């Protein structure tokens, strides 16, 4: 088992302390609430999609460092992507945080710091909550939970 500081890297601690894009998106085209019943973490994701491209995305909610940092980094990573690209990004992210020995793709940027969570299976849901919620928002579901 890796050292805990592999999980709680500087970037994560920083995004936890000073989350980016923790605000409303006004006006927004999509919105969903996410909930992790195991730990009580809650997140709301709002997105504005224009011409098939993510124009703005932000989050609100309370959660642990992993879920807060993951949401914060996600909002930074997805701006300007097409829906198709965003979905693809999510799937590669999901693969990265659940599969041993997978290397992050070069275009994944800061998101790569979350790879350490795969050594902590109980925490994977913390890392993916915001992403699942985003997917739900884009698909028009109102609420998602990571049971």
């Amino acid at each position, binding site marked *: *088992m890796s050292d805990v500081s592999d999980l709680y890297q500087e970037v994560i601690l920083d995004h936890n302390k000073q989350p980016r894009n923790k605000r409303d998106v006004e006006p927004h085209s999509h919105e969903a609430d996410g*909930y992790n*019943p*195991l730990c009580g973490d809650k997140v709301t994701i709002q997105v504005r999609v224009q011409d098939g491209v993510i124009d703005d995305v932000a989050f609100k909610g309370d959660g642990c460092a992993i879920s807060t940092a993951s949401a914060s980094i996600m909002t930074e990573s997805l701006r300007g992507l097409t829906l198709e690209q965003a979905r693809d990004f999510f799937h590669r992210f999901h693969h990265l945080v659940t599969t041993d020995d997978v290397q992050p793709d070069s275009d994944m940027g800061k998101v790569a710091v979350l790879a350490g969570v795969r050594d*902590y*299976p*109980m925490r994977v849901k913390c890392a993916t909550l915001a992403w699942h919620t985003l997917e739900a928002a884009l698909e028009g579901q109102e609420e998602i*939970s990571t*049971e």
Partner: protein
Amino acid sequence: MSAVSPFQETTDKPLDAEALKRDFPILQQPMSGKPLAFLDSAASAQTPERVIEAEARVYREYYANIHRGVYKLSQQATQAYEGVRAKVRDLINAPDEREIVYVRGTTEAINLVAHSFVRPRLQAGDEILITEMEHHSNIVPWQVLAEETGAHLVVVPIDDNGEIDPADFSARISERTKFASVVHVSNVLGTINPVEDLTRRAHERGVPILVDGAQAVPHRPVDVQAIGCDFYCFSAHKVYGPSGIGALWGRYELLADMPPYQSGGDMIRYVTLAKTEYAKPPQRFEAGTPNIAGVIAMGEGIDYLREVGPAAVARHEQALLAYANERLSQIEGLRIIGNAENKAGVISFVIDGAHPHDMGTIMDQEGVAIRAGHHCAQPVMDHFGLAATARASFGLYNTEADVDALVRGIDKVKELFG
């Protein structure tokens, strides 16, 4: 915890029961100074050392309450516990592991379906269809439900061989039939019901059906998708696993629509004092701290059975049944109850002048463990006008020597009561 068994049952090699018997410490003990001939696996099978060890290992190495712990012990216990769903899924060829609900056993599974699936669909005057050969656990829950709701129990009778007529089953389905529940293999008569056919007949009329697999899963390959039924269940203690655990399989879309059964921790999504949201299946049906080590040990029992091979077990038990039939049919005054064409390794019998209870006691002194009584199936007893039968039933560890011991025991009974 052991990995999912890599075993694929591709050969038709007979199993070596003598060797398998050595996997079971209890079968090495003498009984009344004689080798133990354990012929009561239909009541509960014995447990191989690796299952006993698997359960002990949980407590020695990675026990903790599951689901909500972030520390490693809890994580490991949770993974082992959840991992057994895939083992159950593979054992009965269910489509999806989320369809596997852990229950105490067959009895609880049927109560769960009665409460959460059938009850909300039932109105006064509706009907539930069962057969005359059901175990009490597939009778009483429906009686209770019928009494509560004003519904009726409709019963497909058995003939004197212990079989039901599928056409008669169809004929008893009416517009008001809301559910059917039938046993796969009778625990008294050994009858193997044509559950694929019965399911088709029920579905033709839009009637959902549960199959009670308590006596099938330990003894033959089971494929719920081939059967086509809506719910299927069994108990681990008959599948070389521990007592106090079992599994219910149900189609996901049905489970997803069902209200919870018991309620408490772990089956909820969110609780306020005003309102509660429920978790998805299977968690919705698993309130409270479950039998964690029992589930994991059930997985080990399933691995064991799959490694031996359910088809090999079926062939072995068929051969034993043929041998036992031959030997018992030569005994004067002995009558076998249940002569279905398609029959599993369960033989009920009576002997003129000797009550089954006395037979049980006398056989025990000969090292032969059989069951005597109504076998929780009084309606079958009533059909044959009996208060009780003696019953010998086989597991994968039984040999012809066990049948020989049974016959010697019967001789002893006849000596005393002849």
